C-alpha cells in the first residue's frame, strides 16, 4: 500500500473538505483509521484556512507534514487547496465517507451550510445517482443561520430550543425571506420561540424530503446534523424510520477524500 520501510515513519493520508461554511481536515493512517482531524470556519482565504486546518490536525495527532503521503481536496473550495494532489467532488467524497461506515446500500443525505445532496449508493458502494438542491438557502444550514439571526439567538442555542418541545409551527414558505416574515407573524401571535425553532428545523427536513423519495437506509451527514441532532430525529420521524448518523457527521466529506487519497496509493 505505501512504500514506507520499517525504519521510516508511517505515512498518512489527508482529506480536506473546504465547504462554504466550514473547512474540515481528516488524517487517516495506513490502516484507514482516523489519526487526526480539524474543523474551522472557511473564512475568506480558503488556501490559508486549509493550511491552518492541516497544521492543527497534524499537531493534534503528533504528526509531521512530511508524513502526509497524499492529499485529496473536496468541497466548494477544493481548487484552492494548493497542497492537494487531486480534487474530487463533495458528491463523491460524501458517498465514499458514508459507505465507509455503512458498508451496504444506502441513501446519503448531506445537509451542508449552503446546499443539500442526496446520493444513492449500491451495496458495493458504487454511486447509482445523486441530486443537489436548487440554488436556494431553503433547507440548508444557511436557512437555520438566517432564522437564528431573525430570532436574535446564538446558533448554538437552536438545538437546545428545538429539542425542548414537541410542538412546532408550520413554516410553509420556500423562500428564506418569506419564512422570516412568517416568523414575525408567529412572534406577534405569541408562539413560544422554541416552537418556531423546531418549525424551522422541520422546514429544513421538508425541503430534503422534497428532493427524493429517500428509499432504504438513510445516512444523514453534514454540519447541520452535527450541530443539531434534532434535525436527524425529525427526518427519521418524517420518513417513518430512524436515520443513521455516522460518527462525526461533519467530517464525512473529508473522510471520504482521505479514503480516496489512500486508495490512490
Amino acid at each position, binding site marked *: 500500500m505505501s512504500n514506507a520501510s520499517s525504519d521510516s515513519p508511517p505515512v498518512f493520508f489527508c482529506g480536506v473538505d473546504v465547504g462554504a461554511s466550514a473547512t474540515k481536515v481528516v488524517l487517516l493512517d495506513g490502516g484507514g483509521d482516523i489519526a487526526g482531524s480539524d474543523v474551522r470556519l472557511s473564512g475568506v482565504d480558503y488556501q490559508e484556512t486549509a493550511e491552518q486546518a492541516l497544521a492543527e490536525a497534524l499537531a493534534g495527532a503528533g504528526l509531521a507534514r512530511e508524513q502526509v503521503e497524499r492529499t485529496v481536496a473536496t468541497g466548494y473550495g477544493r*481548487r484552492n487547496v494548493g497542497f492537494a494532489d487531486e480534487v474530487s467532488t463533495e458528491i463523491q467524497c460524501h458517498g465514499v465517507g458514508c459507505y465507509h461506515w455503512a458498508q451496504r446500500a444506502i441513501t446519503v443525505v448531506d445537509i451542508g451550510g449552503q446546499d443539500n445532496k442526496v446520493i444513492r449508493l449500491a451495496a458495493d458502494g458504487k454511486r447509482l445517482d445523486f441530486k443537489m438542491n436548487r440554488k436556494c438557502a431553503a433547507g440548508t444550514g444557511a436557512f437555520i443561520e438566517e432564522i437564528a439571526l431573525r430570532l436574535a439567538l446564538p446558533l448554538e442555542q437552536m438545538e437546545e430550543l428545538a429539542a425542548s418541545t414537541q410542538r412546532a409551527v408550520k413554516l410553509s414558505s420556500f423562500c428564506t425571506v418569506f419564512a422570516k416574515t412568517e416568523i414575525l407573524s408567529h412572534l406577534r401571535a405569541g408562539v413560544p420561540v422554541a416552537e418556531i425553532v423546531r418549525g424551522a428545523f422541520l422546514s429544513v427536513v421538508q425541503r430534503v424530503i422534497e428532493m427524493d423519495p429517500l428509499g432504504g437506509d438513510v445516512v444523514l451527514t453534514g454540519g447541520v446534523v452535527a450541530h443539531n441532532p434534532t434535525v436527524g430525529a425529525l427526518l427519521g420521524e418524517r420518513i417513518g424510520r430512524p436515520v443513521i448518523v455516522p460518527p462525526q457527521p461533519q467530517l464525512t466529506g473529508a473522510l471520504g477524500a482521505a479514503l480516496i487519497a489512500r486508495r490512490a496509493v
Partner: protein
Amino acid sequence: MAEERKSLIKKIGSTAAMNELMAEYFKELDQAANTHSAKVAWCTSVGPAELLRAFGFGVYFPENHGAMLGTSRLAPDLIPAANAVGYSPDICSYCTSDVGSYLQKNTPLTKAFGIKTVPRPDVLVYNTNQCRDVQDWFSFYQREFDVPLIGVETPRSVGEVKSEQVQDIVVQLKGLIPALEQVSSQKFDIDRLREVVASSYRCTLGWKKVLRAAENVPSPITFFDGTIHMGPAVVLRGDDRAIGYYETLHAELQQRIEQNNGAVDGEKLRFFWEGMPVWGKLRAHAELFAENRACVVASTYCNSWIFEPLAEPDPFLGMARAYTELFIVRSEAYKERYLEGMARDYRIDGFIYHDAKTCPNNSNNRYGLPGRLAQKLELPYVVFNGDLNDLRLYSEEQARTQFEALIEQVS
C-alpha cells in the same frame, strides 16, 4: 492546482468563414434598414422565414440577438431595465435582455459589426410554436415602432401531428400573405417561395450532416461548437450562402474524422445536452468537459434547426409540417422517444439537463422525464439549474460540481 491552464478548446478553422458570413448578413440588414433598399421583417427563430425571404425582406431574428446578448454577457446588465418597466424576471430572458438592450440603447452588434442599432422593423412576424413569450416580446416592438404584428398560432404539446393541425397552419401561413404584400409592396410569387424553401431544405441537410458527424467516435465537434456554428442555419436559411457554409464546415469535420482528430483530445466520455446553453458560460463549460476528456456530442437545441419536412413538394405544407413537427412543439412521450433515439445514435454515456429558469419551453426535466429515461436506458443524468441569459440565476460552483460528479460517476 489553481494555476491558469492553456485552453483545451480546439478551434474550428471554418469559423472565420462563418464570421464573415454573419458580418455580411448583419451589414446587409443594417444597410436595408438605413437606406430602405429592402424592407426588414423581424421573425421568431422558428417562424416562417422562407415566406419572408420570398417577399425579399431582410430577415432579422431577435432571438439571435438575444443569444448575442448572452454570449457577450451584456444580458445581466440589461435585463433589469426590462424588469423595471414591467417585464418580470421570471419570463424569457431573451425577451427581457432584448427589451433591456432596446431601452438602454446598447447592442452587441456595435462591437461585433460596427452597427449602431438593431435594424428597424417594417413588420413583425411570429410563430408561437416555441412559446407564447415571443408574441408578447414582439408586441413590445409593435407598440414601439407602430408596425404590423402578424403570426401563426401553433398548438403545443402535440403527440402525433395530425393533418388537420397541419392544414390549420397552412391556412394561417397563407393568411399572412396580404399583410406581407402590403408591407413589401410585392405580389406573392409561389415560384420564388419554392426556390427559397428548396434552399432552406438544402441548408437543413447540410446542418444535419454537420450534427450527425458527431456520431463518430471521437466526435469532431462539440455541442458548444454547434451552438456557435448554427448561426447561418438560424439566420440565413433560405439563402444559398448558408448551404455553402455547411459544405465548408462539414468538409473540415470529415477531415478531422479521417485523421481521428476528435474535438476533445482523448475523448473518453460522451454526453447529451438537453435544453438551452448557458450563453454566458459556453467557454467555461466547453473547457470543463474538455479537461475531463468528455465531449458533449449532441443536443436537442442544435437539432431544433433541422427542418426535413421542407422536402414536401407543396412549400406551404412543407413549412407547416416543419414548424409543427419540431421537438419543442411535441408531447412529453414524443420527447422521451426522441431522446432515447439520440442516446442510441450518439452512443452517449449520460444526459445533462439544463433547467433554465426563464424558459420552461426548453427545460424538459420538469415532468420526471430524466428519471424515467435513466431507468429505461440505464444512463446517469444530472439536472442543473441555470438560465440561457440571466446569469443571476446560475451558480457556477453548483453547476461545476454537478458536471464533475456526473463525469466521476461514469468514469
